[in-house]
């Protein structure tokens, strides 16, 4: 991972291979955000020639380090107008890292609107016309690519949503079974890839070997302890493998924080029908799988395979956020309908959170009734067909609300909120409001920070604790996003000091470093500073670090809560 592949699209597509230079030592989100901050004019149009798409495996990707298969994609976002980092699982990070690239930067624009396939091999890069796959959705695209390039490659593709440059278009990464089920979903990164003229990226690591650590024995020992820590923890070793992320549905619903019918209530009567418990039972009884890894080297296996009543593959196991967005948020309690929409989202290439939130807004506007699964599927079909209504829906929840005169668009910086209502759970609202990414539940995910005093210890009993906690969580998350590690490692790291030590030892042994908690904090702060500076130059102010005002006015049952963190408190999140 000591080189960058820079692809310049234009009348004659060309590329160069460069040393990492000023980006040396940066992986994942650190790499993508630094590139966008340094090289993209903040006032450019997201689909213009000046924008760039940066792709980077994490620092540990391509090695034997457990759960190191996250890949980051960054650009100026068509959805938010600010900086964007979206990351995904699947095989792409591991393969790209083994080929030796620390990042790919796509720049320029599509020549005559034509699309190309970028093929990256050990000692060879080619950019070939993608006429044979243009106009296809993700499943057909990957099937054709596999027929041409083989089953040992990893594939990053866009569907027709990306080709049409929807602001809610994603980039799909193929999973272990070569299905396009793992998406860099948020912010419209697929549209930017299309604007650069790239339909697909083929990553072929034939002839490459696993990345070698600087200190093999120390690395092996640390990695073993890290894996043991993950496996023995109740979240990463039991709850997630057994039920997937959808294990959250019952509990969040019971706590009254489950956004229902476009955030009009905090509880959904049909939650038990779409819970992780019910989903796992349904999958296994039909011959599907409730436990499955999204990339090789994962030891949590929080994914699964959803099959229909006849045992035919429908989609990967829908995640909690997807089950919520297409389920409770739209009043739908039918797992089969939800899985079908998950498949459609993956195939067209759209972010499931934004898509479900958009359908919720459309239901609020009267385009379908809450609870009408057939109506929701019909709206989604319009997105896939590219009808005028479909193109509007593909532009996201904020655009749809504006078009239909609806105030209740649950968005921050133009990006839809995920599956936790910020009124009863105020701390998540602080992160939604202030993250440079727009409303994002993963922005403050790395819960280890406070316990380990990364970023400064905060007394959780202080009234303002949630502001300081959000700050520290965002710092630590930004740092972990640069490693390529899945954020689910945060749980064993939170509860088991020996697992945290093993995590640090894995990185230090691999790179011959002596990283400390202060170094992690500094990296996280740097990433957030680049992102906020970019947004500021793009026109963002403190006024953008706010939830929609109706969240401070309209009470949410059953707690009858409103969001009451003050503007002054929100403005203190990034005071460091």
């Amino acid at each position, binding site marked *: 991972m000591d080189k960058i592949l820079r692809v310049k699209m234009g009348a004659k597509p060309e590329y160069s291979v460069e040393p990492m230079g000023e980006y040396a030592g940066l992986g994942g989100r650190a790499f993508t955000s630094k590139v966008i901050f340094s090289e993209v004019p903040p006032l450019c149009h997201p689909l213009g020639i000046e924008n760039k798409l940066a792709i980077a495996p994490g620092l540990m990707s391509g090695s034997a380090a457990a759960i190191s298969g996250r890949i980051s994609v960054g650009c100026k976002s068509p959805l938010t107008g600010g900086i964007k980092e979206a990351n995904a699982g699947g095989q792409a990070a591991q393969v790209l890292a083994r080929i030796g690239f620390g990042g790919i930067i796509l720049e320029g624009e599509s020549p005559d609107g034509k699309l190309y396939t970028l093929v990256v091999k050990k000692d060879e890069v080619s950019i070939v016309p993608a006429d044979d796959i243009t106009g296809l959705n993700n499943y057909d695209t990957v099937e054709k690519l596999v027929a041409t390039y083989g089953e040992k490659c990893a594939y990053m593709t866009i569907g027709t949503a990306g080709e049409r440059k929807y602001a809610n278009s994603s980039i799909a990464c193929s999973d272990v079974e070569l299905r396009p089920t793992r998406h860099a979903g948020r912010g419209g990164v697929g549209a930017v890839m299309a604007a650069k003229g790239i339909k697909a990226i083929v990553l072929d690591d034939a002839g490459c070997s696993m990345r070698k650590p600087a200190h093999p024995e120390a690395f092996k020992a640390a990695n073993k302890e890290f894996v043991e820590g993950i496996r023995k923890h*109740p*979240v*990463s070793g*039991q*709850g*997630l493998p*057994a*039920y997937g*992320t959808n*294990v*959250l549905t*019952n*509990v*969040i619903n*019971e*706590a*009254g*924080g489950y956004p229902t019918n476009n955030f009009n209530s905090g*509880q959904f009567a049909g939650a*038990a029908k779409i*819970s*992780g*418990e*019910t989903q796992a*039972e349904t999958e296994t*009884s039909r011959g599907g799988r409730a436990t499955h890894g999204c990339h090789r080297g994962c030891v949590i296996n*929080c994914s699964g395979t959803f099959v229909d009543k006849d045992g035919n593959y429908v989609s990967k196991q829908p995640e*909690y956020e997807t089950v919520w967005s297409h389920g409770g948020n739209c009043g739908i309690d039918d797992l089969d309908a939800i899985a079908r929409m998950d498949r459609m989202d993956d195939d067209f290439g759209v972010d499931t959170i934004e898509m479900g939130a958009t359908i919720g807004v459309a239901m609020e506007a009267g385009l379908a009734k809450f609870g009408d699964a057939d109506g929701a599927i019909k709206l989604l079909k319009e997105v896939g067909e590219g009808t005028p209504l479909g193109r509007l829906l593909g532009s996201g929840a904020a655009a749809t609300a504006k078009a239909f005169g609806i105030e209740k668009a649950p968005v921050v910086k133009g990006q839809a909120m995920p599956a*936790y209502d910020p009124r*009863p*759970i*105020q*701390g*998540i609202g*602080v*992160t939604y409001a202030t993250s440079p990414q727009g409303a994002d*539940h*993963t922005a*403050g*995910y790395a*819960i280890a920070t*406070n*316990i380990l005093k990364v970023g400064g210890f*905060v007394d*959780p*009993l*202080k*009234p303002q*604790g*949630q502001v300081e*906690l*959000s700050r520290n*969580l965002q710092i630590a998350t930004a740092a972990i996003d640069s490693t390529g590690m899945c954020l*689910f490692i*945060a*749980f064993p790291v*939170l509860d088991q000091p020996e697992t945290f030590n093993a995590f640090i030892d894995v990185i230090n042994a691999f790179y011959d470093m002596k990283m400390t908690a202060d170094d992690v904090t500094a990296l996280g702060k740097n990433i957030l500073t680049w992102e906020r500076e970019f947004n500021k130059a793009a026109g963002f102010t403190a006024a953008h670090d706010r939830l929609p005002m109706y969240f401070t006015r309209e009470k949410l049952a*059953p*707690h009858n*809560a409103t969001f009451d963190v003050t503007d002054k408190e929100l403005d203190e999140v990034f005071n460091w």
Partner: protein
Amino acid sequence: MRFIGEGDWDGPQLSAWMQSGVHVALQEGETVYAFICRVLSMDRAAVAAEIQTLILNNGCVDNPESQVLGSGDTLVLSGAMPGLVGAMLRSDSPIKAMRQGLTPGDRRRDPDAPGMLRLKLFNTVLRDHRADLLRCGFYIDEDNA
């Protein structure tokens, strides 16, 4: 209401009942912790290891050893949850400041089930302790029978 005990039922229906809530008899002045130990045949170490998320009347329970239960309460028992919010919801979570408003609400009196609470088991607790709850015995609404 209909009584369900050991040997009466098993299978998916049992899971659905326990997720949606079954009525279990309370003892006078019983705390959350004492109730769990009695009904699910658990000791202190097992409760700490297996039941990290406790929700009473839609609010988080941070002090199960002193929180007293009453007739008409709804109690949820769950393993540790993933995600930032999942971490917040854990009993006595170090980041509980982020869910300050999520305190147990007023119990809802249930005239059909005096002296009982509605108990819901989720995820690993449901998987690992359904037999214990069957052994203890519980009631379901006739509508669900």
